């Protein structure tokens, strides 16, 4: 595994806080994510897991705190190149086919060298659905399409918000396989889950969130 203790963590977070209407959702969060490692973000409903991921992705402005990547500052350009985000919204156009949707995201987000759209569709179990319009895919298949986008992206850090939702057992196994492969390639992942039912079988750490007082 390409992880050395001396090397600075891929992402380190100090004193991160976010509030809505002056009520703290969370504050003073500290954690690090190293290459080859997955961080499981756990906590009950409405505790702020999604919010944390969106703050990290830069979709919401943090109130306080500092993010560092590989020991250096994290500006917008570096963040965009380093983070891949899988949220609640699928981000596909219903009137484009699966392949066309992936073409768009490769154009916008870039593509990891050596990876292609067809292998991606095969990998996530959508072989044969390449020219189906995205709006005719079932919820689980849409999720798989998002996973294909993730696999194609060159970003080393994956931010996954409830990747297991909507998926059957087969799909859960797929997510775990993708995460394992990504970590083996020297990537890292931040994963939120409700329950303990589906921790990926890799080196993980946990971040347990609780409701702010």
């Amino acid at each position: 595994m390409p992880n050395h203790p001396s090397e600075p963590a891929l992402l380190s977070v100090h004193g991160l806080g976010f509030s809505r209407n002056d009520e703290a959702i969370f504050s003073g969060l500290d954690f690090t994510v190293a290459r080859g490692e997955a961080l499981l973000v756990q906590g009950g409903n409405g505790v702020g897991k999604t919010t944390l991921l969106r703050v990290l992705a830069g979709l919401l402005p943090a109130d306080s705190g500092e993010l560092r990547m590989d020991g250096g500052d994290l500006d917008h350009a570096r963040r965009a190149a380093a983070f891949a985000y899988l949220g609640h919204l699928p981000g596909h156009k219903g009137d484009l086919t699966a392949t066309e949707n992936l073409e768009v995201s490769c154009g916008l987000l870039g593509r990891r060298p050596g990876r292609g759209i067809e292998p991606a569709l095969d990998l996530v179990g959508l072989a044969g659905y390449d020219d189906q319009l995205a709006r005719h895919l079932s919820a689980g298949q849409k999720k798989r399409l998002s996973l294909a986008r993730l696999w194609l992206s060159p970003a080393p850090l994956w931010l996954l918000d409830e990747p297991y939702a909507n998926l059957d057992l087969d799909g859960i196994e797929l997510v775990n396989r993708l995460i394992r492969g990504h970590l083996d390639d020297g990537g890292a992942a931040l994963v939120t889950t409700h329950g303990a039912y589906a921790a990926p079988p890799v080196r993980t750490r946990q971040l347990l969130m609780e409701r702010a007082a």
Partner: protein
Amino acid sequence: MHPLVRWFHQLGSPPYFDRFAARWAPWCHGIGVAVMAVALWLALFRVPADYQQGDAFRILYVHVPMAWMSMAVYLGMAIYAAIALVWRIKLAEILAMACAPIGALYTAVTLATGSIWGKPMWGTWWDWDPRLTTELLLLFLYLGVIGLYAAIEDRRQAARAAGFLAVVGVVLLPIIKFSVTWWNSLHQGSTISLTGPSHMDASMQLPLWLMVAGIHVWFVGALLARARADNLRREAGKSWITETA
């Protein structure tokens, strides 16, 4: 720390600002009203009637200060909004958003008093004169800022979006003014032109300047009061409110 800098930081703390505003707003209101009352009394009963316009010109003493304020308040709002956008100072957000309803009110008064003045002077309540048109559009800009601020749930995001609009508006105001002027000068033969008393007697000027000074002081009071209300609303869940109540 420099005492001024420290004071500014203190002012940013919601409970401190609440006490500050509660303390000073009544003073501003009181002084403003007193000065304006003197000015209005002078304007109504001391200043002689105009030889051309008769008593109608007395409208000037409410119309002109309000017109000036309507623009000055917009500028103030934009400045606060720019500060809030760049440095993310919450107090600046609150102050910027407190400017909007006040400015809209003053703009509406300008429009109303101007119309009332226009009827006897020009024979019409309204004409598409550049100055009038831009004033109307200024009202719309104010209403847009107010509407945007009200439409977004998260107060800070709302303030940033509305503040952004205010800043964009300040860039566009000169363009609007210029374009409307151009549009109006396109066709000559305009039978009406906006002409006030070109040179005013000193005795006629005094109430105007008093009025302008009074309305400025009053505005500071109104700004503090409105900012205080917004500040309280944002802090609804905090303990200091129920403690001070």
